[in-house]
């Protein structure tokens, strides 16, 4: 039985010596989604991923992955969660073959054949030391380690930041293939919104250490509109919903507004925003958030 919720955070916070890395984060990610985690540097993306992975423990609040604590003393969470850190650490002295053996010895559900096949397809020589591989190959090997242990939840921290376009394409291709084949949940953080828009179907916007938005992308785009009309001032008519961002020219006002119902006010020209426009609007004003409409949990 798969848990219907892959990631569940409640009042999650993490304090460092220099301040709060994450504050009061509450959101839920349904299983089987590919989640885009976006936000400015220092907003807490890495902290959130590390908390979900159980590498660090929260100062406040709770986080559950696949229904369990990440540091589950019974050890039920660790085999099901995979984590790819920003700099893809690998044992540089180990050959790729050694790394596969490492995976085999430390994971009971290790799929060696699939790992070899995947690396073969990518043309990665198993006798080469990990430190001598290119950045793209290292990322692929690190990803393979996560995938071959049959993790059900993947947490990827800026996995493609250092990769050239071909390596990036291969990475996402591998990832999407596994998403189809095994119905896993993926949370990945990145700055490149175009990548995320292609590959993700759920978005979490993290800004100033807080969660602003946690929503499926389809719903987010369906609920937001660009409204273009004559120059105006707040307060806006309630018929257009909640204004997320307003910008003005001499005679024209452009609004990004959120409302579940269509806007029928004839004074406004209504257009569909792109994901990038919505994300940027929220990032510009960390004080706004979109209340999460939590999908009802499936009956088991």
């Amino acid at each position, binding site marked *: 039985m798969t848990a219907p919720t892959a990631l569940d955070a409640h009042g999650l916070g993490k304090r460092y010596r220099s301040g709060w890395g994450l504050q009061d984060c509450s959101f839920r990610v349904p299983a089987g989604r590919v989640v885009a985690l976006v936000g400015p540097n220092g907003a807490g993306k890495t902290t959130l991923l590390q908390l979900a992975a159980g590498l660090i423990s929260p100062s406040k609040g709770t986080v559950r992955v696949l229904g369990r604590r990440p540091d589950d003393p019974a050890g039920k969470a660790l085999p099901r969660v995979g984590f790819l850190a920003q700099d893809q650490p690998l044992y540089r002295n180990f050959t790729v073959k050694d790394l596969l053996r490492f995976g085999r010895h430390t994971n009971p559900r290790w799929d060696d054949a699939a790992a070899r096949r995947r690396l073969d397809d990518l043309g990665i020589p198993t006798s080469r030391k990990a430190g001598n591989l290119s950045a793209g190959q290292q990322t692929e090997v690190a990803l393979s380690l996560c995938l071959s242990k049959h993790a059900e939840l993947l947490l990827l921290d800026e996995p493609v930041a250092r990769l050239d376009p071909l390596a990036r*394409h291969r990475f*996402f291709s591998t990832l*999407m293939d596994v998403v189809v084949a095994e119905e896993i949940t993926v949370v990945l953080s990145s700055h490149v919104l*175009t990548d995320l828009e292609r*590959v993700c179907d759920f978005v979490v916007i993290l800004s100033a250490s807080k969660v602003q938005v946690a929503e499926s992308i389809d719903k987010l785009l369906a609920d937001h509109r660009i409204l273009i009309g004559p120059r105006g001032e707040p307060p806006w008519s309630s018929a257009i919903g909640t204004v997320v961002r307003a910008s003005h020219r001499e005679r024209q006002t452009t609004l990004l507004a959120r409302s579940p119902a269509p806007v029928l006010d004839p004074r406004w020209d209504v257009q569909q925003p792109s994901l990038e426009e919505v994300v940027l609007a929220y990032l510009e004003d960390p004080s706004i958030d979109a209340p999460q409409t939590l999908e009802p949990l499936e009956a088991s």
Partner: protein
Amino acid sequence: MIEFRLDPTSGVATYRQLADQVRQALRLGLLGPGDQLPTVREVVTSIAINPNTVLKAYRELEREGLAVGRPGQGTFILRSLLSASPADQLRMRKRLAAWLAQAQAAGLDERGIRALVDSVLDAGVGAVEDIA
């Protein structure tokens, strides 16, 4: 089997691009009834997009009655959008190529040609013949 492409700059939603490409292939006779569309896994591996996008595109085609999904087997084309036979299509293609050469020789650039074609299409084919 059709091979999909994605144009990220076109401003058109990905799922719609995929559906459009299927319709285009049907019109050109490159796909016909009974042909199988690529599996979700095949599409996703070749152009690295979210599987739900492919599912959305295929669902739209199903709604229009162009395709049908058979559980365990795949998604198959139901009907054709072919207006002309392949032989006719080939003939029209050759004549169009010849005409294009003439138009270019007359000094029309690509934009001019497209504007010309658009205006004739808009006016209706009969209207031009009236003028002539």
